[in-house]
């Protein structure tokens, strides 16, 4: 898979002296969906703004489709669509005219058939003549996506696309993103919602304090860093973990009816077999047993804490 975006040692120091990006390097492959996770102020939006040309980098370079964002800004910007974090739309403008405006601004000739296609895809066609101020928050966010897609970009940046959006609309947006990926668009999204990254991303990047902490295939990341938990439900509650089981570092559920065993799923020996044998020896009777994979959120929180 060829590289669509290459960010090399990108730094951004604002006038106040605040270092928003501390030498960020990342390669984004053509046609993938990459989610950038990070707490507020991590540098996600600065990174996106710099690639899009809104923020001027202090040093470093960015290539989009092989073109430099400074020297060949026309080429790179034509390739990029941006959905900003804030809902920024002219309230008195009609939906269709603001989308047409975006297309023209990016140098594309008028194409009503294409505009109709994306408005239909985003369930906005019925609202095409409505003024922006008459739309709900979710609809406005769809308009932002329509504007970003209006010039048929090869790269789409979604900066917190589903912030403040209800669950149903969020799922709709994920469908739209999946369709875009299928059509070959490279998608970079920043999000606070771990489940969003888990649901739709191919790769996950974790960014904090202006540094990329890691970039990994989602599945690999979860396999490598994911810890599993085994929950053993007991027929009779116990007051404490029996001494015979102390070596396993078990936790007792608050009601005393379950034992919790955390283990490394990728390890050579998980210790489950011996634990179950020792349980029987200790005279405990199991009624149920289940395992649980740690979520991306657990991984993310763990990583950010570790670096602090």
């Amino acid at each position, binding site marked *: 898979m060829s590289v669509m975006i290459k960010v090399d040692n990108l730094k951004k120091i*604002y006038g106040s002296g605040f270092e928003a990006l501390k030498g960020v390097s990342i390669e984004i492959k053509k046609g993938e969906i990459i989610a950038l996770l990070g707490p507020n102020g991590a540098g996600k939006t600065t990174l996106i703004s710099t690639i899009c040309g809104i923020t001027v980098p202090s040093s470093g370079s960015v290539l989009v489709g092989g073109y430099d964002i400074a020297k060949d800004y026309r080429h790179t*910007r034509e390739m990029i669509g941006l959905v*900003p974090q804030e809902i920024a739309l002219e309230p008195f403008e009609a939906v269709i005219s603001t989308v047409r405006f975006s297309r023209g601004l990016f140098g594309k000739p008028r194409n009503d058939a294409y505009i109709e296609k994306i408005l239909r895809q985003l369930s906005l066609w019925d609202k095409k003549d409505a003024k922006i101020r008459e739309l709900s928050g979710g609809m406005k966010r769809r308009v932002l996506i329509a504007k970003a897609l209006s010039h048929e970009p090869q790269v789409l940046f979604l900066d917190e696309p589903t912030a403040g959006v209800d669950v149903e609309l969020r799922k709709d947006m994920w469908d739209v993103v999946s369709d875009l990926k299928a059509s070959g668009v490279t998608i970079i999204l920043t999000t606070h919602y771990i489940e969003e990254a888990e649901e739709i991303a191919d790769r996950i990047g974790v960014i904090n304090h202006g540094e990329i902490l890691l970039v990994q295939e989602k599945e690999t990341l979860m396999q490598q860093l994911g810890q599993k938990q085994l929950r053993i439900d007991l027929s009779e509650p116990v007051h404490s973990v029996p001494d015979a089981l102390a070596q396993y570092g078990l936790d007792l559920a608050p009601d005393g009816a379950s034992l919790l065993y955390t283990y490394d799923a990728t390890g050579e020996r998980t210790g489950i077999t011996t634990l179950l044998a020792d349980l029987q020896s200790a005279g405990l009777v199991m009624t149920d047993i289940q395992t649980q994979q740690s979520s991306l959120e657990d991984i993310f929180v763990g990583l950010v804490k570790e670096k602090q």
Partner: protein
Amino acid sequence: MNISAIKSIYVYEMARFFRTLAQSFLSPVLSTCLYFVVFGTAIGSRIDTVDGVSYGAFIVPGLIMLSVMTQSTSNASFGIYFPKFIGTIYELLSAPVNFLEIVIGYVGAAATKSMFIGLVILATSFFFVDITIQHPFAMIAFLTLTCLSFSLLGFIIGIWAGNFEQLQLIPLLVITPLVFLGGSFYSISMLPPIWQTITLFNPVVYLISGFRWSFFGEADVDVTISLIAIGGFTLLCMAVIWWIFKTGYKIRS
């Protein structure tokens, strides 16, 4: 050059003008009528001719200039300030456009609007006074250059302004007084000598004088100087805007 972008910005801005056509059109017509009633009829009837021109006709170029300068400035400043205020400027900054294309789009639209208003005022004045325009091409040239240069100035103000108060500050406190004191309603030859000299430091004098010359063939200052003044002012504004986009002043962090 991204012609499509220029056209999009221009059409988008003009659409705003047509959305508020009643305000855009009726307001200057009404204020011109009021000026004619007050200055032309009530006060003007007590004033002899100025430079051989009836007072009612004499104030027409000044009236047009007054509206054109204020409208150009406010249209252009609002045009670029509004996207900054509501946040849609991100789209402009991330689009494949250079500063010249942005300026042509916004300033072109603002200049067109104020030119339209200037011509509406001129048409309205025909209902009140008899006017013969001696140099119609020069009149159009002066009008166009004034619309352009003050729209450029408005664009700069719109970029500089951090809030709506600042947006109004320069038009209210600088431009309007300069226009009123720049010979809109009088010939500077009517002033005492010392004030004539002081008035010559007001750049607006040259614009109004040149514009008035195109109507009546009489000017307070040489027409060539007027042309140089307005040309120089336009270039100065262009240079400031070029610097703004080069440094990203107040638009690109």
